[in-house]
């Protein structure tokens, strides 16, 4: 893929940092409170992977669409999905983004283009391609981003969808978050030793492999892919390497399950997308302790209020449970 050297400005860099911090604080708050057993649904947390969500979504317009997976909190928040609606959904409350019907694995905010986050592996990929097909037919210049995990590359539906997207030169960007794991099974147990980007290349997608823990790099690559898609140049595939920190599903860190040693975990966590950009910002004089504190206080307040809101929000009425079976 063409290298796009975008001159990323200071404001954008600070914005990336802020959005990452926001996602991090939300995931941590969920993990902290999960034990209260009031969030009665599975949660797949994404701390450690914020660089991809934020880098990708920062390159999108509000009208652009995204679809995502079971691990969607970061994508949803980075695309500016409502935090209150997300927390209400996780708490099973009426103002939740789908009225308590879905829980954490079914987030949605179509005001800002978060169309569908769905938990069956690969299920949202063709939906995203279909959305792009509709945009093309209608002559709209929206771009669709399909977030997917590395395991999706193993499902037939990825290939069927990529084939069609390429055939019709659709405005799609596939953003593959390669965190090496599916549940707790490493990539080497599931796929032969070949670059996943080669698969996408074989479908004639423009490809690029990058450090998913470098939000600036993701943003720049995404800018290129989005520009290409919007200009009718067809689909791209960004493979973003990263690691998740917590257990596949739930609040604990992976090492707490004995999946790795604490030292291994700390080594992994040292490659933190937020710390990486934070250090650059500090070096450039764009961030200092006071600035960081102010940011944390501001975000902490927003998050605390959203949790308060969710915990006090009404549950959906039982009589409404059967609504919307048919359109």
């Amino acid at each position, binding site marked *: 893929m063409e290298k796009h050297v975008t001159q990323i400005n200071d404001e954008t860099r600070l914005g990336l940092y802020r959005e990452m911090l926001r996602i991090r604080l939300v995931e941590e708050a969920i993990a902290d409170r999960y034990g209260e057993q009031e969030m009665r649904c*599975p949660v797949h947390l994404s701390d450690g992977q914020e660089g991809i969500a934020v880098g990708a979504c920062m390159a999108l317009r509000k009208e652009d669409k995204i679809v995502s997976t079971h691990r969607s909190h970061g994508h949803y928040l980075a695309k500016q999905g409502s935090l209150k609606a997300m927390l209400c959904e996780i708490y099973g409350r009426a103002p939740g983004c789908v009225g308590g019907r879905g829980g954490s694995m079914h987030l949605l905010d179509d005001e800002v283009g978060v169309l569908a986050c769905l938990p069956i592996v690969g299920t949202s990929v063709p939906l995203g391609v279909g959305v792009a097909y509709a945009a093309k037919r209608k002559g709209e210049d929206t771009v669709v981003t399909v977030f997917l995990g590395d395991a999706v590359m193993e499902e*037939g539906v990825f290939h069927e969808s990529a084939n069609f997207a390429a055939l019709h030169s659709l405005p799609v960007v596939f953003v593959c978050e390669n965190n090496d794991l599916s549940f707790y099974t490493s990539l080497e147990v599931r796929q032969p030793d070949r670059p996943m980007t080669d698969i996408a290349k074989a479908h004639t997608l423009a490809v690029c492999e990058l450090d998913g823990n470098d939000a600036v790099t993701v943003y720049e690559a995404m800018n290129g892919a989005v520009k290409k898609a919007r200009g009718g140049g067809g689909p791209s595939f960004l493979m973003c390497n990263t690691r998740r920190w917590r257990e596949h599903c739930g609040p604990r860190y992976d090492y707490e399950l004995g999946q790795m040693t604490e030292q291994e975990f700390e080594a992994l966590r040292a490659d933190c997308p937020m710390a990486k950009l934070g250090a650059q910002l500090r070096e450039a004089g764009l961030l200092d302790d006071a600035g960081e504190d102010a940011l944390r206080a501001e975000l902490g307040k927003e998050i605390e209020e959203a949790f308060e809101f969710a915990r006090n929000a009404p549950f959906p009425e039982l009589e409404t449970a059967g609504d919307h079976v048919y359109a």
Partner: protein
Amino acid sequence: MPEARSLNGAEAAREALFESMERDPDVFMMGEGIADHGNFFGTTNGLMEKFGSERMLEMPVAENAMTGIAIGAAMMGQRPVMSLQRVEFVLLALEQIFDNAAKIHYATNGRHKAPIVIRLVVGRGWGQGPHHAQSLESVFAHFPGLKVIMPALARDSKGMLIAAIEDDSPVICIEHRWIHFAKGPVPEGHYVEPLDGPRVRREGSDVTIVATSYAVLEALATAEALDKVGISAEVIDLRVLRPLNLDLVKKSVAKTGRLVTIDTGWITCGMGSEIVATVAQECFSELKAPPQRLGLADYPTPSSRSLVTDYYPTPEALIDCVGEMVGAKSEQMEAARADMAEHRGGLPHDVPNPTFQGPF
């Protein structure tokens, strides 16, 4: 038969896998995350250590190919036990199941067979939602050539799974998540609980309740409550959904004259529909009241706990249904309800037992 200890359904299934793998080197397991710390809901503990990664085959996340690969290997005499954590994950593989697994014996004029077992789990924990809580047994039960089983008691979780693995036909074994927690006597060592049809789990004379899987456990508890108010319910555990053998059900209805079915899935086109149709056809003159069907409310499973309070067929709904059929007095029904409530001991409706911590 060897002596029985008390095990839960998950431990019982684990013993079935262990015994089968130890007896027959052609048996191997395949699936996604089948040997990580979760041990497939506690059904695979120690199997990796004992049998190694070749027989605890970790598969790519590709259910359609996985199923076809299992069928191909089975055609060559292997006995794969494919295990998926949710029923929904196998929806990607229905073509392989319906066209190849179900038909390979028939369409090859008996030359090939596909002795595979596909274990699928019905999720009913906290907030599993529309894609992770479906009970789709009647979909599989539609197809000639498949065997479809749903164990309820721990003894069956082991004995029926062993029978399934030794069976020469493809068997879909649907394990409701909440039977994994339920304890019961389980014999040691190798034994088979035949896949030949239903069993009477409790005798009674006023009404026949036919239930599957977790609903059997609830029906048994409810039958106790009904008994105390003078209503005698016979509880039949369906066990084998295809091939469907209803001899025992017909015999029971001849005695009671009343039939209630409980599906763990939706009522429309569910197992209850099939049972009621057969009973209406063959036992019409013996019926004292129109048969009744219970099952899930007729919409997808919502996540919020407040939306599922009466989504599942509750013991209260069963008491009401039976009470009305036998013409019970309202005091009797009240008393039975109160007894059930006491039996539940104040547990929230989304919790199967006091130690349950969610979400799975």
